[in-house]
């Protein structure tokens, strides 16, 4: 660990272990996880169900306590980082509050963090623009399609100044076409804001299309089996997915996945 990496590193995990105590005995969700995420990285986590992707994201966000090893975020503990409101977290389902309209949903973190009314208005308009939802501020979540809801929840995570955006299968429930579209937009947004993004997905093309770094995980116990740095350029049109490099990386990811998968389908 030289000084150079530490200054650039946003997340540093060393020999991380996490064991859940359950009624059926302990479950090892993470074993010996080592990972460095640098500022501005777009890191995807891929792996079969139950391999610990969500758990790792939650550890980063201080929603879960590791039982062994170390992890720092911006040089401090995840919990300190949480208190400094370093995270925007996007959950698999949109998790919008049904009793608040879109604008007030996006205001929620701003209210809690004590932004002024004027500032709140300004930011809501900004992020709504960003996710192309201007004009829908007065609608309630259930009046929007699944894709729009998911965009609203991303807007909510963007509204305050978190450097780190953690997204847990944000597009899992959407159909392929909508998904493609949101992927494109997400990339643009990332390019514009230069946030550090942690992204969980089940889809190989999605992971390859979005990431600068793909973390392949395998279950029982959850561990990292491969970390693939993507050579794709930052500018990525949708049809980059038909390019040989893309197919090559996708192939490597699939192989990595299959190796870790075993036969417990």
């Amino acid at each position: 660990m030289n000084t150079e990496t530490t200054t650039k590193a946003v997340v540093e995990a060393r020999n991380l272990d996490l064991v859940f105590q359950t009624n059926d005995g302990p479950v090892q969700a993470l074993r010996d996880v080592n990972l460095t995420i640098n500022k501005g990285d777009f890191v995807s986590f891929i792996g079969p169900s139950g391999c610990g992707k969500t758990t790792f994201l939650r550890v980063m966000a201080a929603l879960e306590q590791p039982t062994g090893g170390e992890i720092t975020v911006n040089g401090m503990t995840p919990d300190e980082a949480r208190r400094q409101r370093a995270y925007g977290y996007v959950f698999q389902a949109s998790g919008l509050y049904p009793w608040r309209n879109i604008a007030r949903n996006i205001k929620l973190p701003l209210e809690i963090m004590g932004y002024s009314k004027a500032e709140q208005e300004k930011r809501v308009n900004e992020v709504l623009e960003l996710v192309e939802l201007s004009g829908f501020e007065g609608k309630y979540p259930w009046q929007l399609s699944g894709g729009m809801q998911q965009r609203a929840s991303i807007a909510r995570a963007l509204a305050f100044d978190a450097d780190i955006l953690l997204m847990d299968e944000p597009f899992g429930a959407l159909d392929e076409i909508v998904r493609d579209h949101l992927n494109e937009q997400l990339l643009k947004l990332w390019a514009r804001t230069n946030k550090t993004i942690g992204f969980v997905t089940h889809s190989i093309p999605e992971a390859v299309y979005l990431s600068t770094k793909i973390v392949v995980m395998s279950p029982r116990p959850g561990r990292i089996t491969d970390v693939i740095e993507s050579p794709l350029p930052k500018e990525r049109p949708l049809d980059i997915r038909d390019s040989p490099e893309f197919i090559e990386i996708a192939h490597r990811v699939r192989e990595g996945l299959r190796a870790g998968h075993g036969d417990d389908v």
Partner: protein
Amino acid sequence: MKTVVAVLTVLSVIIAFWYAACLPMNIKGVLTEAERAGAEVTPAGAKERRDLSEFGLVLDNNFAIAATWAQDRPRLPAPHQVAVELWKTTGAMVLKGKMMSKRSLFYHGWVTLSATLLGFAIGTGLGILLAVGIVHSRVMDMSVMPWAIVSQTIPIIALAPMIIVVLYSVGVQGILPKAIISAYLSFFPVVVGMVKGLRSPDAMQLDLLRTYNASLNQGFWALRLPASMPYLFTSLKIGIAASLVGAIVGELPTGAVAGLGARLLGGSYYGQTVQIWSALFAAAILAACLVALLGVIERGVLKRMGMSA
């Protein structure tokens, strides 16, 4: 529309049955009266009729059928008797400009209602406070909840006179003792519903707030409270009906001076079945109105919160 037709149909069937039921229920009394008035009754003598089947008596004495619907103190008053009594003690009173006289059900309804509302307010407040405590404190959850269930197995009517006497002795009189009994009955559904409601946010919604580093207080107002609203209203509807019963129970031992409970008791005391039935219906109508009112408030609140789809 469909519902209205269905309800009306069911109601007319019930009323038809009700009229029919008056025959066997009242026949013995009617025959005894008729016999006293000199009519020919088969068989003669109330004692002989005591163990005979009511249906047989109706068949043997069909001249008495009309009278079973017009008795003074029937075992089962006919629907129109109840309706007439209800009208006499409500609408007719209003027309006479004596809406708040002692013989008006509006007066008695109001007496009961005021205790109900006060008790409901106390019970709801207490219920919500307890629920908040239970949700936020494990100790309260583990120790209070089982005893709250036990509390509901205690027959309140047995305690009511004692509660009233104890409150007397500390100088509390009037509406408050009744309200406390009604609060005792209404707090439980509120606690149960509110605990459920305050716990209804899923782990994800709670985690979201954690990522914002929201305080307990902020979490309560921004998430738990709004999420609990639908549950709250459901239990409020149960609670207000329970409150009304509590207020009525509370009226019985306090001298049954006024209120629907006093009407029930007075009716029972003097064998005025028609009066009992009309007070019963008045209470049920009052309960229905209160529940409907809560329904309207619920719809309004949830709509303003954007929660009614």
